[in-house]
């Protein structure tokens, strides 16, 4: 690149970067957005935690006292929250009716009903007021089933020590190949964090791409582009703009990351704690952000140049973001089965790979050849897309008036 071209690109890059960094909207999104997100994510967590500590009143109506005690012990041992379990040895139909009416009136929250017939058939009933609290339902199932097992074992003559010994089970220590035992990076909290980062990747690629498109449309509408073109080439303008806006995005992401680490570091139990996301994943995040940004920003710049208004560009805008949305919807299935055929293929498709290969890297260690192939395809695609986008940009920024057709845009490729 010629030195004056580099100089012009640098001037445009600085201008695009500083122009945005000094705005109120940048400061708001950079410093208040994490707080807002924490609020949005935190509210359900707080509500959920609060719900778990509700004072739930459960009546355990059981025909056998020993079985009732075993089930209650199971419930109390397993539950970390405040459930009040009351044992009722009356299992007459009248009592059943009374309990049902109390349940309807809201005086109690649930009834576990085990009459003599139930004991014989090994079948209990759990009636509750609402369908919420799935964890508690599972707990009831396990405790009732465990209580029945213990009762049967005791009936067959085993002592409580023998029963306890038989039901001790075994711990399963799950290890992932290539990861040191005790490394916390692949635990549930870490996976949630990297999935969150993959989502941040999607949001930033989308929002900064759209920002570029709007900026080009604005320059075209205000005719600033004509003055700029008198001093700089379209290629210099496009490169400067992409780099400048990209730097703003990177600055914002780094600021968010630093804020997250600073807030989470003293609280080792939080998933955002520094040791949870290894440095390698942070580096991958930076690389995929840059590559994804270079790919999408060029397309958004070309669309901005080709059309006259946001409304006109909307259709193409959707075409561009479709693969990105597709990648976003695949984050969870790919994370759940990172070696499935779907995950491997989707993570190699260049328009999805910045999000999906990152997701795979976060939850497992894909074969090296797949990572190399992903980068090779992605970089090759960036090169081709940038070339096409630059040609459309060169012609499009000087075209005013009617909306160009796809055929016309193909023609532009031959003009440059």
């Amino acid at each position: 690149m010629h030195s004056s071209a580099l100089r012009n690109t640098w001037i445009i890059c600085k201008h695009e970067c500083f122009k945005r960094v000094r705005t109120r909207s940048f400061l708001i999104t950079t410093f208040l957005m994490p707080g807002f997100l924490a609020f949005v994510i935190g509210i359900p967590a707080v509500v959920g935690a609060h719900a778990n500590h509700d004072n739930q009143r459960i009546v355990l109506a059981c025909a056998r006292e020993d079985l009732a005690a075993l089930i209650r012990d199971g419930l109390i041992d397993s539950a970390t929250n405040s459930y009040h379990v009351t044992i009722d040895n009356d299992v007459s139909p009248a009592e059943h009716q009374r309990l049902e009416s109390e349940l309807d009136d809201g005086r109690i929250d649930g009834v576990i009903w085990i009459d003599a017939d139930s004991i014989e058939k090994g079948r209990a009933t759990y009636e509750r007021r609402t369908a919420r609290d799935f964890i508690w339902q599972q707990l009831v199932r396990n405790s009732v089933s465990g209580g029945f097992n213990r009762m049967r074992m005791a009936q067959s003559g085993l002592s409580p020590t023998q029963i306890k010994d038989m039901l001790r089970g075994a711990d399963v220590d799950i290890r992932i190949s290539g990861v040191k035992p005790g490394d916390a990076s692949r635990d549930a909290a870490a996976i949630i964090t990297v999935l969150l980062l993959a989502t941040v990747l999607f949001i930033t690629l989308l929002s900064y791409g759209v920002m570029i498109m709007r900026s080009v449309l604005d320059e075209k509408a205000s005719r600033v582009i004509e003055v700029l073109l008198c001093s700089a080439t379209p290629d210099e303008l496009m490169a400067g703009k992409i780099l400048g806006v990209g730097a703003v995005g990177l600055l914002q992401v780094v600021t968010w990351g630093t804020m997250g680490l600073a807030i989470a570091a003293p609280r080792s139990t939080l998933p955002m704690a520094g040791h949870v996301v290894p440095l390698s994943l942070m580096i991958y995040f930076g690389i995929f952000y840059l590559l994804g940004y270079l790919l999408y920003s060029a397309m958004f710049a070309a669309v901005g140049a080709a059309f006259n208004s946001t409304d006109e560009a909307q259709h193409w805008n959707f075409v561009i973001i479709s693969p990105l949305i597709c990648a976003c919807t695949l984050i969870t299935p790919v994370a759940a089965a990172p070696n499935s055929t779907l995950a491997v293929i989707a993570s190699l498709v260049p328009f999805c790979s910045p999000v999906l290969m990152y997701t795979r890297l976060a939850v497992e260690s894909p074969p090296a050849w797949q990572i190399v192939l992903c980068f090779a395809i992605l970089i090759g695609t960036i090169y081709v897309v940038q070339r096409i986008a630059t040609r459309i940009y060169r012609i499009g920024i000087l075209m005013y008036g009617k909306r160009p057709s796809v055929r016309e845009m193909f023609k532009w490729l031959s003009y440059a």
Partner: protein
Amino acid sequence: MVTVELERVRKSYGKFVAVDDLSFSISAGQIFGLLGPNGAGKTSSIRMMIGIITPDAGAVRLFGEPFARRHLHQVGYLPEERGLYRKITVRENLVLLGQLSGLTSRDAIARARKWAERLDIAQWVDKRVEEMSKGMQQKVQFIAALLHEPQLIIMDEPFSGLDPINANVLKDVILELKEQGRTILFSTHRMDQVEKLCDAICLVNRGRAVLQGALREVKASYGSRFVQIAYEGDGRFLARCALVESSNNYGNYAEVKLRPGADSQALLQAAMCGAKISRFEVMEPSLEQIFIDRVEKASA
């Protein structure tokens, strides 16, 4: 020395030919008017001069050399519509455009301040462009075109949006630039301004040059077949008179083109029969008359 030279330049967009075999040259220190109706090819010609687009055929030469981007540091461009970032300040706009034209940030600020004082917008330098009136924005645009002291200044409708006082200030600056030996190209529809300021013109229509040369020679070549008449009363004599080739009648004032060989005194007598004449002047044609005449002929 020739500052700008277009030689048989052609530019088409698909089937539409915007500029067709256009040739003209602008000498150093000249004020040159590029005239023509809408869609005549003026903007495409200017864009080829400043390298925004490349000609399909022909050659563009700046400062005696084939066009190269390095020449653009010697070119200032004022587009017809305001080409400024509206959300940033005047100073930031001028520093950006100055830097792209090869100035350092410090030089750009110093020169911007000097020009802002000269054009009486110094108090607006730290305001956002969107807060300014159209006329003031035009002044900023004017400064942006002159900031790097270019040898060639290309101006598309430079007086649009300016009140008569500010138009006069700008006119003085343009004449000063001419005295300094700068070359100035106007692209405009405002014939009165061109007539007062330009040394030479090129009239383009449908991408082709239909008339060009030194303004004085162009007007002289049209002879003295043009008459201005100020009158009161019935103006229908103009339509009836066989001496009149064409006329532009405003109700109590008319610009008349006589038929070749017609006697202007005979027209005066005919006019006096139908109306009271307060002024009758035989003169060279105005540029507007030439413009209309040529464009109508070319379109016929």
